[in-house]
C-alpha cells in the first residue's frame, strides 16, 4: 500500500519543486491553467474532460494513462501556487490506489465481481456524474421564467375591491432577522471548518507529535472528524515525510498495525 511508485509527482503539490518543462501529453494548454479550477466543477469533471478529450470509452478507461495525466494536471496547478481543493487530492489518492491495486498480483480463485473492481466504482461514479452534468445542461435549455417565459398580465384597476395586502406582525420581522443572524453564525463556523488543509502544515504537525512521542501508531495520525479530505492530507503528509527520510514506516509482522517512527532526529529539526 505504501509503495507508491516514484513517478507520481506528489512532491510538486507540497513544495512546488519546479519542473523543467511541461509534460508533453498534457491536453490542457498551459496558458489555460490559471483558469482551470474555475473551468472544472471538480475532480470528476476534470477526469471526464480528460477521457472525452481523447475519445476514450468510459467503460474501459486506461487507468494508467488517465492517472498520469491527472497527476500532471494537478501537480502543475499546485506549482502555480493555486489553492488546490482537497477534493482534487482525494481523487489523486484514489487513482493512485487503483493503480497500485492493479499492479498487485491477484489470487487466481479471486474472481471479482464488478463491485470489487476499484475501476468499476470509479467508472460508476463518472457515469453518474456525467448523467447529472448532461441533465443540468438540458435543464438550462428548458424555457424558463425571466428568460424565455413571460406571464401575460392584464390591468385589473377597474375592479373596485381593495386588494388585501399581506398582513405582517412586527414579530415576523424580528423572527426573520433572528433567522439571518443564526445563518450568519453557522456560516462563520463553517468557514472555520473549511479552512484549507495543507499537506505541509500536516507534515509539521506530525513531526511535532513525534517530538513528544518518537513512535506512533499509523492510525493515530488521522483525525476522522476531518472527513476524507483530512485523511488524504494526513496520508500524503506521511508519504512525504517518508520520502524525505524523516520518518520510517514499520510493521512488526504481516497484517499487524503500521507504526511511524522518527528516522533522523537532527534532520527533523529543520522541517
Amino acid at each position, binding site marked *: 500500500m505504501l509503495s507508491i511508485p516514484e513517478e507520481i509527482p506528489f512532491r510538486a503539490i507540497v513544495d512546488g519543486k519546479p519542473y523543467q518543462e511541461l509534460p508533453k501529453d498534457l491536453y490542457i494548454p498551459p496558458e489555460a491553467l490559471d483558469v482551470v479550477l474555475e473551468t472544472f*466543477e*471538480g*475532480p*470528476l*469533471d476534470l477526469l471526464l474532460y480528460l477521457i472525452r478529450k481523447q475519445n476514450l470509452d*468510459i*467503460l*474501459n478507461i*486506461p*487507468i*494508467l494513462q488517465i492517472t498520469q495525466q491527472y497527476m500532471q494536471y494537478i501537480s502543475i496547478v499546485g506549482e502555480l501556487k493555486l489553492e488546490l*481543493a482537497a*477534493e482534487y487530492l482525494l*481523487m489523486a489518492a484514489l487513482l493512485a490506489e487503483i*493503480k497500485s491495486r*492493479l*499492479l498487485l498480483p*491477484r489470487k487466481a480463485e479471486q*474472481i*471479482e465481481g*464488478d463491485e470489487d*473492481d476499484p*475501476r*468499476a466504482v470509479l*467508472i*460508476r*461514479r463518472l*457515469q*453518474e*456524474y456525467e*448523467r*447529472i*452534468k*448532461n*441533465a*443540468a*445542461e*438540458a*435543464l*438550462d435549455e*428548458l*424555457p*424558463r*421564467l*425571466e*428568460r*424565455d*417565459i*413571460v*406571464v*401575460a*398580465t*392584464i390591468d*385589473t384597476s377597474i*375592479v373596485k375591491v381593495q386588494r388585501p395586502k399581506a398582513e405582517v406582525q412586527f414579530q415576523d420581522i424580528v423572527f426573520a432577522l433572528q433567522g439571518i443572524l443564526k*445563518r450568519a453564525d*453557522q*456560516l462563520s463556523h*463553517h468557514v472555520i471548518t*473549511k479552512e484549507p488543509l495543507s499537506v505541509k502544515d500536516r507534515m509539521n504537525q506530525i513531526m511535532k507529535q513525534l517530538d513528544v512521542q518518537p513512535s506512533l501508531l499509523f492510525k493515530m495520525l488521522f483525525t476522522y472528524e476531518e472527513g476524507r479530505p483530512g485523511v488524504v492530507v494526513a496520508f500524503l503528509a506521511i508519504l512525504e515525510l517518508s520520502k524525505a527520510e524523516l520518518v520510517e514506516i514499520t510493521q512488526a509482522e504481516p497484517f499487524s498495525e503500521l507504526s511511524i517512527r522518527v528516522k533522523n532526529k537532527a534532520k527533523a529539526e529543520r522541517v
Partner: protein
Amino acid sequence: MSENQQEQGELKRIIEALLFASDSPMSLQQLQAVFPELDAPRKQAIQQAIDSICLDYQSSAIELHQVASGWRFQVKVDMASWVARLFIQKPPKYSRALLETIAIIAYQQPVTRGDIEEIRGVSVSTYMIDTLLDREWVKVDGHKETPGRPALYVTTKQFLDYFNLASLDDMPALQELEALAIAGEMAI
C-alpha cells in the same frame, strides 16, 4: 343555443378572466373555490372551459399553459426575443454548480447535502443551498435517520413552475447508465 351551452360559455369567460387576473397559476381547485359554494361548477366543467380556451388562443401570441401549480396565460416562446426587448435587465444566469445541484435534487429526491457532494465529487457550499431555499426551488422535507440527522431536500412546485413544467415526469429524461462489463482481466 341551449341553456346548458350558454352556461358553459359564461363559465368559460369567467375562467378566462380569473386566469388573466391572477398573479400566480391557478389550479382547478383554486378556480372552483372562487365560486359561491352552492353554485360552484364541477371540476370537469372547469377543465372543459380550459380546453376550449386553449383552442381559442391557438393562433394568438399567448397561450394557456399548465405548470405544476396550475394554469397560467403566458407569451408564446417564439415571441420571447421580441418581448425581451422590453426589459432592460438581463435575465439571471445560473452557474453549472447550481444547475448540477438542482438537477441532483430534482432527479434523486429526497437527497441530503452529503448525497449531492457524493455525486458531484466536491463540497456543496451553504451559499448554494441558501440560494435554492431562497428561490423556493427546494425545501427541507424531513431529516435522514443517520448520525447528524441531515436535512432531506426536495424540489417544490415553484421550481417546476419556473422551468415551465407541469410535473417532475416532464423533466428531460436522464440517460440510461451503460451496464458495466469489465473484463475479468484488469488491463492497466
